[in-house]
């Protein structure tokens, strides 16, 4: 065997030249941050002697609440990265009118590919999975998800995927084929090298993780509801979580199949989607969007749930039209599987097929419109408090109908034929996903933060963040509608029309404003942590909440509820407060079983990450080792019979009674004092 062979056997296609420096200042900075930031965390943990704490309290935890928080941390890290990329792209386009701009076309292509991938799979998905993970079991009065171990495996597979995307910043390059990675461009002849492989394995890991989460959420909602919690007594967020879970179960497999077939094409010389030897790229388009369209609703439905909670709570009112809302969510979930073809009206199918899918798409506008009106009617005759989450809700309602309009427009094949692949489309889906999903998740983050950590977030910086995000969104995306109608294409590194320039500059200014919005969120978090004693609301109900999660201390104990509640209404906690039974001592306590911590999900995630990285670089021995380690860890787990731990009734009693005593002693405060330090988390029930 020659030396070259040995190097290939050991390192695959990985070479020194794949490591930084990359000969491009921006890429080098990115790689520098991707190396320095984790290093800084490692140093900090070592200096503060926090490794053991991190491992025992967090990484190995099977508690749905901690897993939810870890999902959200992943989402925020990836959001930061994806926002920087978005800003760079806006800068490039603004400066590249009849000029070269700041990044090369190939680098620009990597930016839009990673931006889309990071935003969809590693920001929005972990964020919403994290929020559902945290809130849904509390809302249905459950002690945990049905499969806590599976939940942790999902988390660590998602983390592994995010790690792969991050690794591409440092080692080698990411794909340039966009977040949808259409073949044949992503086939080896046109995209040789590691880029597309990075995309394939990152997305595959994330999609398997999401499918596992979906199964877990659906089973939990079906099986773990507290006594009396009929399906039609679930808070709307749980209904949205249920529909999201069902969509995850059915929409993720087509993606896994599509990426798997693409991998077979690239690794094993198959011809599913190649130009030649009978490959058919339209098969990919069909499969990808069979996932991709329901995915849009996976992203937006949890946010609809959050808006329903936020708007009804801060209007001091029951949700208007609960059955109507549930029916609308179900309609949207079902219809989402009937519209995928609108993503490729222009690929040459017949007019009747296009028209049928166009009409199916417009039908989704009906339940969505109903929901907007239901939210308006929820505010009607309420007492509205314009807190930061509520302000986001207002921006959402106003912007979402504009996005709905452009959606109806795009659903019309005649118009889509003109603006397909243009910036009009880019404006449309950002118009749905930024105010819809991202603002929803941010509102949810601010809304439930006091529940999670026991103190409220700083209100002033929350409002500053709202101003920046809302203004930035409008400035960044409204000009793109006009540019799209003027024929500006998406994914374009350079434009040749001077008339575009003012619009592009305006959009760039919007990107800056959004960046300030993100910084404002960080400042808000930092200030709030500093002032956490003043903002503390440990009793658990700072906003006069309606549903069960507010009937626990903040943060809730590991077992969620000392005694399972008796559910009598969609707003059980409101009923309890009005009857003044919320903080009464229960008759008796019982032992509670909770899952023991285990490091096996972390090992599975790490092994999967090694396997994926090795596959990207054709390091076969490491790929096999990683794959075997992941399955081996799972098999080891299956022999572990000692998976549960008992919390004695006496401990539960002690903790619960301590909380009840504090709650009864606290002064109930009305909504005018909601933002005052006096708000320790016991609200006067509104009548």
């Amino acid at each position, binding site marked *: 065997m020659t030396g070259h062979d040995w190097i290939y056997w050991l390192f695959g296609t990985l070479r020194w030249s794949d490591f930084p420096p990359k000969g491009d200042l921006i890429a080098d900075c990115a790689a520098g941050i991707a190396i320095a930031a984790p290093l800084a965390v490692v140093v900090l943990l070592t200096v503060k002697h926090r490794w053991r704490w991190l491992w025992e309290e967090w990484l190995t935890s099977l508690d749905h609440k901690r897993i939810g928080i870890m999902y959200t941390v992943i989402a925020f890290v990836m959001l930061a990265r994806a926002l920087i990329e978005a800003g760079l792209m806006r800068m490039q386009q603004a400066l590249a009118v009849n000029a070269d701009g700041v990044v090369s076309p190939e680098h620009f292509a990597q930016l839009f590919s990673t931006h889309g991938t990071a935003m969809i799979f590693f920001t929005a998905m972990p964020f919403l999975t994290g929020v559902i993970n945290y809130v849904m079991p509390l809302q249905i009065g459950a002690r945990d998800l049905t499969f806590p171990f599976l939940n942790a495996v999902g988390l660590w597979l998602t983390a592994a995927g995010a790690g792969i995307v991050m690794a591409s910043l440092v080692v080698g390059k990411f794909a340039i084929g966009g977040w949808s990675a259409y073949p044949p461009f992503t086939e080896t002849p046109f995209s040789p090298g590691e880029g597309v492989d990075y995309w394939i394995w990152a997305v595959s890991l994330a999609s398997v993780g999401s499918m596992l989460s979906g199964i877990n959420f659906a089973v939990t909602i079906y099986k773990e509801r507290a006594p009396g919690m009929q399906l039609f007594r679930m808070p709307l967020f749980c209904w949205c979580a249920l529909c999201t879970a069902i969509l995850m179960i059915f929409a993720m497999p087509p993606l896994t199949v599509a990426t798997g077939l693409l991998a077979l094409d690239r690794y094993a010389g198959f011809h599913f989607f190649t130009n030649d030897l009978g490959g058919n790229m339209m098969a990919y388009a069909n499969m990808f969007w069979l996932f991709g369209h329901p995915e849009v609703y996976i992203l937006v439905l949890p946010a609809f749930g959050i808006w329903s909670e936020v708007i009804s709570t801060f209007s001091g009112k029951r949700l208007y039209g609960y059955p109507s809302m549930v029916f609308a969510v179900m309609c949207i979930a079902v219809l989402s599987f009937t519209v995928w073809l609108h993503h490729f009206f222009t690929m040459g199918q017949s007019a009747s097929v296009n028209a049928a899918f166009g009409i199916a798409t417009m039908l989704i506008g009906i339940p969505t419109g109903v929901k907007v009106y239901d939210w308006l009617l929820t505010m009607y005759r309420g007492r509205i408090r314009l807190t930061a989450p509520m302000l986001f809700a207002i921006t959402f309602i106003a912007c979402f109908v504009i996005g709905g309009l452009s959606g109806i427009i795009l659903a019309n094949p005649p118009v889509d034929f003109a603006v397909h692949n243009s910036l009009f489309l880019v404006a449309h889906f950002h118009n749905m996903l930024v105010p819809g999903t991202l603002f929803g998740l941010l509102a949810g983050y601010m809304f439930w933060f006091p529940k999670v950590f026991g103190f409220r977030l700083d209100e002033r910086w929350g409002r500053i963040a709202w101003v920046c995000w809302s203004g930035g969104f409008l400035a960044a995306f409204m000009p793109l509608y006009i540019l799209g109608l003027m024929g500006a*294409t998406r994914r374009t590194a350079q434009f040749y029309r001077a008339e575009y320039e003012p619009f592009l500059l305006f959009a760039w200014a919007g990107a800056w404003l959004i960046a300030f919005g993100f910084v404002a969120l960080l400042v808000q978090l930092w200030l709030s942590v500093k002032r956490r004693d003043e903002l503390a609301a440990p009793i658990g109900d700072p906003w006069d909440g309606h549903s069960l999660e507010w009937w626990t201390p903040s943060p809730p104990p590991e077992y969620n509820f000392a005694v399972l509640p008796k559910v009598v209404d969609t707003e059980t906690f409101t009923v309890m407060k009005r009857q003044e039974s919320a903080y009464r001592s229960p008759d008796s306590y019982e032992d509670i079983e909770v899952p023991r911590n285990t490091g096996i999900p972390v090992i599975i995630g790490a092994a999967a990450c090694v396997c994926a990285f090795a596959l990207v670089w054709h390091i076969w021995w490491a790929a096999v080792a990683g794959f075997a380690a992941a399955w081996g860890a799972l098999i080891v787990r299956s022999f572990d019979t000692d998976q549960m731990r008992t919390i004695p009734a006496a401990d539960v009693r002690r903790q619960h009674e301590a909380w009840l005593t504090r709650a009864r002693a606290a002064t109930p405060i009305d909504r005018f004092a909601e933002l005052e330090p006096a708000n320790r988390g016991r609200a006067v029930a509104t009548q």
Partner: protein
Amino acid sequence: MNFARRLSCLLAIPLLLTGCSLAKDGILFPAGRVAAIQHDHLVRTTLLVMIVIVPVFVMLPVVLWRYRLTRRDSTYRPDWDFAWPLEVFIWGVPFVIVGLLSFSLWHTTHRLDPYERLDPAGRDPLRIEVVGLDWKFLFIYPDENIASVNELVLPEGREVAFTLTADGPMMSFVVPRLGSQIYAMAGMETQLHLLTDELGDFRGMNTQFNGRHFHEQKFVVRVRDDEGYRDWIAANRAGAPMTLAAYARLARPSTVARPLHFGAVAPNLFDRIVAKYRPAKNTAPMLHGDAPHPPELRPAAHDIPAGAMP
């Protein structure tokens, strides 16, 4: 461009947003029948949807103002959560509007089906074969036996029937002011019918990302009167012939600085390009093996000077 000019551009935004100095391009400024119908459809759809949207913009501020916490004299009904008449209204109105929109969608979609003639009664359309290449378009005029690269000349008022394919990744062919776009895919044929209404020079391009020179894949469309069209055909005939060898060179990933013109075209060139990706029954053995080299395997895409083609 200096800072001051950029700033003035930024300040001009409100003016621009009023629509008085938009780039005259895209379906907002149609120059062909398809784009004109699309424009009208866009306006009609927008106006209909406004019936649902405008009330939201009216109600939202009113509700927020009237039912704010600090205003104590407005009605407060925390448990009010349902009313049948409202339900009928908020489900019914969108339902009726989507019904109307669906009717108009079905009709217009069939009218603008890119595979169908726009004017079945009119004279035969001008046939043009389009080949999407990395990163340029080859236009073959089979009836005239000429070809051009990145320049499309069309006679005014005459229907054009395009047949498209690609010799590389997927591409999408569009002339924004004329209307519809359609994908060009290797081994497959798609069709598009357009009708020009206005003399002038327009721009066309590929809208489907296909690599690092994607943004340079643009071409000029010149709509001429019959005389101008005939003159261009005649001038084009002076160009060198598009032999199979010349095609093989052109098909390599590259950009072209200026449009190229070819005075004759190898027989059945378009069909051979489509056929070369078909398995087994390869009807074009001469083209076999001439598939474009993948871009990454070549050092760099380079310009083919206009005069360099044989």
